[in-house]
């Protein structure tokens, strides 16, 4: 009779352990998901900042490449001018 009780208690213990492990795994998964969500939030913020910076830099590049700026620079700083006819050789 005592043996039977022992068997019952030990199987109850096993079942409880399994349930506990399952619950822990479940909780652990949720913790992981939450952590990833936090990381995603950070990553999205960084991405947004980089996108903004990128578009600003692109605009800056276009601004630096504007014909008016290049012509002014070439004329004033480099002393250049539009070529005369005899200075142009067409190579094709």
């Amino acid at each position: 009779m005592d043996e039977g009780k022992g068997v019952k208690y030990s199987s109850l213990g096993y079942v409880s352990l399994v349930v506990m492990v399952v619950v822990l795994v479940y909780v652990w998964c949720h913790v992981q998901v939450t952590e990833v969500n936090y990381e995603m939030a950070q990553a999205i913020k960084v991405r947004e900042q980089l996108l903004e910076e990128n578009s600003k830099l692109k605009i800056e590049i276009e601004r630096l490449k504007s014909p008016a700026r290049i012509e002014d620079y070439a004329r004033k700083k480099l002393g250049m001018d539009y070529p005369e006819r005899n200075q142009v050789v067409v190579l094709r």
Partner: protein
Amino acid sequence: MTGESRKVLKARITTALVFFVVLFVALVSRAYQLQILSGEALKARAERQHKDVLELHTERGKIFDRNGKVLAASTHVDSVGVHPSMIKDHEKTATELARILNTNKKTVRAKLKEQRSFSWIARKISPEQSQRIRALNISGIQLVKEPRRFYTNRGLASHVLGFVGTDENGLEGLEFKYDKYLKQVARKISWGRDARGNQFCMDERGGTSNDEKNNHLILTIDSRIQHVVERQLQEALKETGAHKGTAIVMDPRTGEILAMACVPDFNPTVFYRYSDEIRKNRAVADSFDPGSIFKPFVIAAALDEGVVSPDELVDCENGRYTVGKKVIREAENKKFRELTLRDILKYSSNIGSAKIAERLGKERFYRRMKQFGFGSRTAIDLPGEASGIMRSSELWTDVDLATIAFGQGVSVTAIQMIAALSGIANNGVIMRPQVVRGIIDNRGQVIREFTPSVMGRAVSAETARIITSYLTGVVGDKDGTGQNAQILNIAVAGKTGTAQKYDFTERRYSSEKVIASFLGFFPANDPRMTVLVVLDEPQRKRWGGQAAAPVFREVAQQVIRCFDNGIGEQEYVAEPLDMEIKNAAIEEITCDPSHDGKSFIPDFTGRTMGEVVRIARERNIDVRLSGTGWAVKQNPAPGAFCDDKTVCAVLFRPAY
């Protein structure tokens, strides 16, 4: 247990029961109130507290030129706002903000003390300013991201591009016309916040969905040509003292506008600093009396209708021709007797033009001018286009017919003029002018393509060819009015115009105020570009040939020399070398006159231009050079005898 104690126990149990029942009812009531009565409101409140929405980086569509260069783009910049109730030290905050924002301290202080939950201090500040404000870390001061439109070339093509308002809505130009394509709807993702205020993402895709529908415009404008045109117009304004200037460059084969400039221009980023008059795209919205640049269309119509023939002489009445009660004279009181059609254009004879219009008759003349597109909108894809004024022929008097023939009493827009001449350049077929080539999405896929479309045929190809040859004489001939538009080794067809402006106060044409213009295309035998230059009220150099033709020449020369546009200098004289050579404004190199007069023409083929010149000089032979590269053809042929009157024409072509 005695009866007494049993009673006490019962009373206690009853009391406890009542207490718990009351408590239960209270709890249930409260639960009912929280869950059922105010459930929705509380749920929303809770969501507000722990849920947030993040607006993702979205931009208004870009505008590119035909070579893919960005002309307009948007990005986000910070705006500064304040929650006045949260500000502790008003004085210090106002001082620091005013210093960073370069504004009045009093104004900032007033904003900080406003009885509102939130108010703006400055909108769309520079990145440096926002960085400095962020560094201050003042509670109650908030930096909010807002989109801002940048025009990367400042005023370049500003009248075509237009501008946007504070909320990024297109207000003028292409920004307005194509607003529904360029406008970007904000993209949002769910955003959670925990008890500590840390944010976490609640959107499984992390905002990476491809629901972004960014559309971009591709224009027909070439920003390099646009720059050259604007620069030359500005120079012309300085030189002639003109109040305003307009220029358009168009590809006559397709109707694509390569450049459209109005000077003075404006910076669209700060459009509010300029008057409406400066911001108006005068190339499409303003009409003017065209003056003599209208004459080619009159002659073309007459030729096409067969009322005159190319070899006919028109009596120009020795400079004085009476129509009704009005005496028509030539410009500068010149006097001509009999002129050919070619000479009528070359000398820009008012009387010749008026007499040809008379032969056409009012109704036919009106119909033909309508065929050229005068008096109707071209339907160019720009807002605010005017139709010009071409009164019905039934309302014309005989004087009207005569004056309209030389461009007085009719009102046209710059875009109508260039479209009409492009029709002549394009074998008589007028193409619809267009500034937008297409619309693409974020991945570069074409959403809409605007292919060139035909407006109609104005004249026959034969008539167009004849008019082109006449117009080539206007520029190429030594006594033509358009000599200042000559380009070395390229045949130019064009017409000058000097129109008196109508003085509305005195109700007559002013002798002081004029519009100087030049309308032409090149190369004449294979037209690639049509150019119109209009200068309003030049104070010095008041004639079209003096003021506007040089602008055309400078623009054309820079376009030919600096850009890879396939315009070869040699094309025009490729065949009948000896016949048309004078029209091509060929470079002439005169040899030393003291030669013996007896020589044989050497073989120049395969030699460079420098070698040909050296050999010719050594042998005292006059040569006319055309084209670039290496000599490929010559006339007379090698070995032919030549004397001191012989001129050897040599054609050069680049090596492919």
